[in-house]
């Protein structure tokens, strides 16, 4: 295979790769080798992968090649390699959550989404880097080091699913599963120029997805196109008896409605998302994207989400409070880091946790513990849940008048590594456009719609509860008439 061909293949969508496998243009094994080679060559510059499972990937490639040849396997993702954010449990493979607490942890069971992808014949390449326990917006909070943005390696890829976004952008995996609690698939997708979707809360089983904030967490596909996201979402969605928060709702055929025309689509533009704080270069790109939708037949009107400015405050109570409870399972006794020579049980708990967790995780545990402590519950957690109701009501009202909402994913493009790492408040404020969606629990996706100063800009498209099909249709129609999702960083375009 020539150098140019390898480079080309690494920029294809999952759907295109699957077609090449079915047409016998390439075998699953050749495809796996191609991505393993690229990871070996390029990942030292990016640090996207924590674990690469070469042997398992090759063994699985042989099996899947055989099953496709015999006709036993015809799933549209069969044979297509992918990467998992390192918080999905994978039996016999490290699951670190980007933390020293789980540096050597191998889960005794598989996450439901991993199980479903295995059944589909998808081939796991490895586990990708993330902010520790999914807490962060820059991927600088990983015990395994910062991940670099393939468009400019002096900049962050975003977070917390930064490894997933960087790997896809650089052609080190065609797709990945991330998780989104406050924007963790949408923001890195925007910074790295790829597509991602945070489905409705409860759409995908979280069994085996390490918990951060249980009333917010949701798994999210990250990929090269809306069409790929439809295939992935189709494969992993649905009710799971092992996750009591998964929604018992039918899963529609997401690919079937991708080609519906957008004539008459009613787009709402939340005016609060275009107020002070939005970078002028980002605003320009977003406005141009909205114009494109008008040309596709959509109508556009301004709407208001009057309580969205409260989302940062409410989120940074609710998420830490739930995190402090979820992370209490790390006690140095049953699994994870355990301190040396504990003098008593208290010492075992306190030192194991102090040594095992990084700074941002400890900050959020302290905030959450404070907010839930005696005398403060009503003033913080309960108050935040009431604000959350107001934020949800804003979305419910908006969707009475429009089909989807559109706006920026983030106020700026990717920032420099180290620029905000000493200022958590500045980092939190950057989540302003993704947090309202998370608090309301509605679905939203991010697609690349242009560049500002040579850095990718993502458009956020927000839908009503369980209306992922509409979001994917809208995004797909845009990607039929534009090629922003086809752009790849030149530095990673070779063999």
């Amino acid at each position, binding site marked *: 295979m020539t150098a140019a061909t390898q480079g080309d293949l690494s920029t294809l969508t999952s759907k295109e790769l699957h077609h090449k496998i079915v047409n016998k243009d390439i075998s699953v094994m050749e495809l796996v080798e191609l991505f393993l080679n690229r990871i070996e060559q390029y990942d030292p510059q990016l640090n996207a992968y924590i674990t690469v499972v070469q042997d398992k990937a090759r063994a699985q490639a042989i099996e899947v090649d055989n099953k496709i040849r015999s006709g036993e396997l015809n799933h549209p993702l069969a044979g297509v390699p992918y990467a998992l954010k390192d918080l999905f449990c994978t039996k016999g493979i490290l699951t670190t959550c980007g933390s020293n607490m789980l540096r050597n*942890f*191998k*889960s005794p069971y598989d996450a439901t989404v991993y199980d479903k992808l295995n059944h589909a014949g998808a081939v796991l390449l490895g586990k990708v880097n993330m902010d520790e326990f999914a807490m962060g917006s820059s991927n600088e909070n990983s015990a395994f080091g910062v991940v670099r943005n393939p468009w400019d390696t002096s900049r962050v890829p975003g977070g917390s699913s930064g490894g997933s976004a960087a790997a896809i952008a650089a052609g080190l995996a065609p797709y990945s599963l991330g998780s989104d609690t406050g924007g963790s698939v949408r923001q890195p997708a925007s910074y790295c120029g790829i597509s991602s979707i945070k489905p*409705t*809360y*409860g759409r995908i089983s979280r069994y085996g997805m390490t918990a951060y904030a249980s009333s*917010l967490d949701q798994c999210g596909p990250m990929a090269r196109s809306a069409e790929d996201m439809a295939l992935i979402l189709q494969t992993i969605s649905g009710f799971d008896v092992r996750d*009591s928060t998964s*929604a018992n709702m039918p899963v529609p055929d997401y690919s079937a409605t991708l080609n519906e025309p957008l004539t008459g689509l009613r787009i709402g533009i939340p005016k609060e998302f275009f107020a002070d704080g939005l970078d002028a270069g980002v605003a320009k790109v977003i406005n141009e994207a909205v114009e494109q939708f008008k040309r596709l037949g959509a109508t556009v009107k301004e709407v208001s989400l009057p*309580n969205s400015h*409260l989302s*940062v*405050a*409410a989120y*940074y*109570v609710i998420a830490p409070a739930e995190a*402090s409870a979820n992370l*209490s399972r790390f006690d*140095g*006794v*049953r*699994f994870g880091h*355990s301190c040396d020579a*504990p*003098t*008593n*049980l*208290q*010492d075992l*708990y*306190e030192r194991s*946790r*102090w040594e095992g*967790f990084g700074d941002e995780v*400890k*900050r959020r545990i*302290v*905030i959450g*513990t*404070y907010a839930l*402590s005696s005398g403060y*519950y*009503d*003033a*913080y957690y*309960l*108050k*935040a*849940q*009431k*604000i959350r*109701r107001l934020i*949800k009501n804003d979305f419910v009202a908006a969707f009475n008048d429009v089909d989807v909402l559109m706006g920026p994913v983030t106020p700026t493009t990717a920032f420099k590594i180290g620029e905000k790492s000493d200022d*958590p408040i500045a980092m*939190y404020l950057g989540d302003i456009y993704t947090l309202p969606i998370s*608090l*309301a*629990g*509605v679905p939203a996706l991010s697609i690349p719609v242009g560049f500002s100063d040579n850095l990718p800009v993502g458009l956020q498209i927000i839908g009503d*509860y369980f209306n992922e099909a509409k979001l994917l249709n809208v995004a797909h129609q845009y990607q039929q008439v534009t090629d922003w999702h086809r752009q790849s960083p030149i530095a990673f375009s070779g063999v």
Partner: protein
Amino acid sequence: MSENSLEEFEKVSCSVQITPDTIVKVAHLARLAIPENRVYSYTLIIGDILNLVAQMNAVNTDGIEPLLNPLDATQLLRADEVTETNQRELYQSVAPRVEEGLYLVPKVIE
């Protein structure tokens, strides 16, 4: 919101002044062995974060139903049936210290 909690609420909303003593107390509740030389920096940053979240206090939420679950779903319960087999050895294979099927911890009873 009850009268008592309203008092607490006003106390908090007036002054998000976190003291080093509070940080030590909360760290203990969270089972985190915070070293003395980190207490001050934690006090500052936690204070800053609490001032950020104090924005919530500007909004009257009287009579608003708290949102516990974005779908307003209630907890599902499964049938009380045995669905898992005993996999103690597998689950204990990831534990730091085990002996004869038991987790080992420092002595708690003298």
